[in-house]
C-alpha cells in the first residue's frame, strides 16, 4: 500500500509539473497573442498553424544561443540565480488541490500532492523565497543596473507580502483553517469566498501582480530606467529560466486566487451531477478554466496599464493596501465573532 501511494504521488508530481511547464510555455504564446489583439496586430503566426509552434521555436533558439558569463561576476551565484528562481516557482504547486479526485481506469487518484495542515503558509513561504533567485542573480552579475533591479525586486516583494498576508488572514479567519483543501471544500457550489471578501480579493490580486513582478509593477525589469533590470547580464537559457519562472509564478498565483476566492475546483450546480467520475473531471476542468481566466486578466492588465513609478508603488503598498487589509481583517474578525455568538 505504501509503495502504491508513493508511485501514485510520484506520477501526480510529474504530471502536475509537466502541466505547469506546458501552461507556462503556452502562456508566452498567449501573452503575445493577447498583446497583439489589444494592439490590433496579428501576433506570432509563422511557426505552425496560428503560430502554435512559436514557444518551441523560442525555446530552441534559447538553447542554441551563446551563453555568456561576465568575467567580473560571482560565477557560482550567477549560475545558481536562475535555478533558484525556477525551483521556488515549481515548488509551490504541491499544496494546491487541483481537484477532488479523478477516476482513471478504475483507479481513484487524489488530486492534491500534499495535503498539509498549513498549505497556505507553505505557499507564502515559497513565494517569499522566490526573491532570492532575483537578488542573487542581480547581485552576482556585478552590474549596477541589475543590482538596482534586484534591490527593487526585494523591497517590492517584502512590502507587498505584508498586505498579501493580511488579506489571507481574513480568509483564514472565515474558514477556520489554513489547509487549502479545507478552504476549497468549504466553497462548494457558488458559496465562493469572493462574495464575502471582495476587498480582500482586490488586495490579494494587486499583491499577486506585484509578487510576480508583472506590469504595472514590473519595476525590477523596467527597460526605460534599468536596461533590462536584474537579468541584464543573462543570456541563453539562463535568461529563459528567469522569464519562464515568471510565467510559472503567474500560473500558480492564478491557481491560488482561484482556490482562495473563487471556489477552487467547485462550480455551480455541481450537486446535480451524480456520477463521481464525471464530477471529478468536471471539477478539474472548472479549476483550470478559472486559472486560464486569471492568467488572461494578468495579461490584460499588463497590456492596458502603464508602469507605476517606484515611489508610487511604495505608497500604494504601504499607505493604501496595508491599512485597507488591516481594516478588512478587523471587520472580518468582528463579523466572525458576531456569527459565532449567534447574531
Amino acid at each position: 500500500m505504501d509503495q502504491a501511494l508513493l508511485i501514485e504521488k510520484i506520477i501526480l508530481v510529474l504530471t502536475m509539473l509537466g502541466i505547469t511547464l506546458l501552461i507556462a510555455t503556452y502562456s508566452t504564446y498567449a501573452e503575445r497573442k493577447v498583446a497583439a489583439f489589444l494592439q490590433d496586430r496579428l501576433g506570432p503566426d509563422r511557426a505552425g498553424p496560428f503560430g502554435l509552434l512559436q514557444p518551441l521555436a523560442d525555446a530552441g533558439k534559447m538553447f542554441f544561443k551563446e551563453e555568456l558569463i561576465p568575467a567580473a561576476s560571482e560565477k557560482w551565484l550567477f549560475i545558481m540565480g536562475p535555478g533558484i528562481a525556477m525551483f521556488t516557482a515549481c515548488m509551490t504547486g504541491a499544496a494546491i488541490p487541483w481537484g477532488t479526485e479523478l477516476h482513471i481506469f478504475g483507479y481513484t487518484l487524489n488530486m492534491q500532492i500534499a495535503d498539509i495542515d498549513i498549505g497556505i503558509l507553505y505557499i507564502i513561504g515559497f513565494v517569499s523565497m522566490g526573491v532570492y533567485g532575483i537578488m542573487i542573480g542581480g547581485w552576482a552579475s556585478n552590474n549596477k543596473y541589475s543590482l538596482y533591479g534586484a534591490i527593487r525586486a526585494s523591497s517590492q516583494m517584502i512590502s507587498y507580502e505584508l498586505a498579501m498576508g493580511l488579506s489571507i488572514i481574513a480568509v483564514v479567519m472565515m474558514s477556520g483553517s489554513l489547509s487549502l483543501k479545507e478552504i476549497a471544500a468549504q466553497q462548494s457550489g457558488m458559496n465562493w469566498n469572493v462574495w464575502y471578501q471582495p476587498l480582500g480579493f482586490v488586495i490579494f490580486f494587486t499583491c499577486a501582480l506585484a509578487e510576480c513582478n508583472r506590469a504595472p509593477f514590473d519595476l525590477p525589469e523596467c527597460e526605460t530606467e534599468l536596461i533590462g533590470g536584474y537579468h541584464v547580464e543573462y543570456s541563453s537559457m539562463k535568461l529563459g529560466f528567469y522569464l519562464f519562472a515568471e510565467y510559472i509564478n503567474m500560473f500558480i498565483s492564478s491557481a491560488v486566487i482561484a482556490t482562495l476566492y473563487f471556489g477552487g475546483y467547485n462550480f455551480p450546480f455541481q450537486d446535480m451531477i451524480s456520477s463521481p467520475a464525471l464530477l471529478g473531471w468536471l471539477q478539474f476542468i472548472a479549476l483550470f478554466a478559472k486559472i486560464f481566466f486569471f492568467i488572461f486578466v494578468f495579461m490584460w492588465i499588463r497590456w492596458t496599464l502603464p508602469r507605476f513609478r517606484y515611489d508610487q508603488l511604495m505608497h500604494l503598498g504601504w499607505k493604501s493596501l496595508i491599512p485597507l487589509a488591516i481594516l478588512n481583517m478587523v471587520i472580518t474578525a468582528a463579523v466572525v465573532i458576531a456569527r459565532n455568538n449567534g447574531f
Partner: protein
Amino acid sequence: MMDNIPFLIFSFITILTALGTVTARNPVYSVLFLVLTFFALSGHYILLNAQFIAVVNLIVYAGAIMVLFLFVLMLLNLNKDSEAPRPWLWQISAALSAGMLLVVLAGSMREASLYLVKGGPEAGEIGLVKNLGKALFTEFVVPFEISSILFLAAMVGAVMIGKKEKQQA
C-alpha cells in the same frame, strides 16, 4: 537507525552551513549560508511534527529578515577588500569570549529540565497549528500578550528612529 537518517542529514546540513556562515569571507555568502541553515532547521521542526513553526521560521527568518540583511549588504557592497584588519589580540579575545559563552550555554542546558507538555493523546501534536493556538491563547496567554506588547514597542521605536533621521536631513 533508519528513523534517524533524515535527522542525521538535516543535522549534517545545519552544521555544515552554520560553519559556512562564520567562515565565509564574503558577507553575501555568509547570509546565503545562514538561509540554508534556516532551511535545515525547518526540516528539524518538521521532523518534530511542528509544521507551523517550520513554515513560520521560513517565512519570517529566511523570507523576510535575511532578505533585508542581503539588501543592506548588497547596498554597502562589502567584500574581501573592504574587510577591516584584525589584530591578533582581537582574535584571541574574540575566541576566549565566544568559548566562555559556549561553556555558559552548555552548563545551563545540562541542568535545565525542558518544559514538557502534559501527556495525553495530543502530546506529540502540540506543533500542529490548532493545538499550538489553543495553548498560546489559554495556558500561555499572559507571556504571549506581553511579547506582543514588546513587539509593538519595538515597532514604534523603529518608526520613531526613522522619523528623527528624516527631520535632520
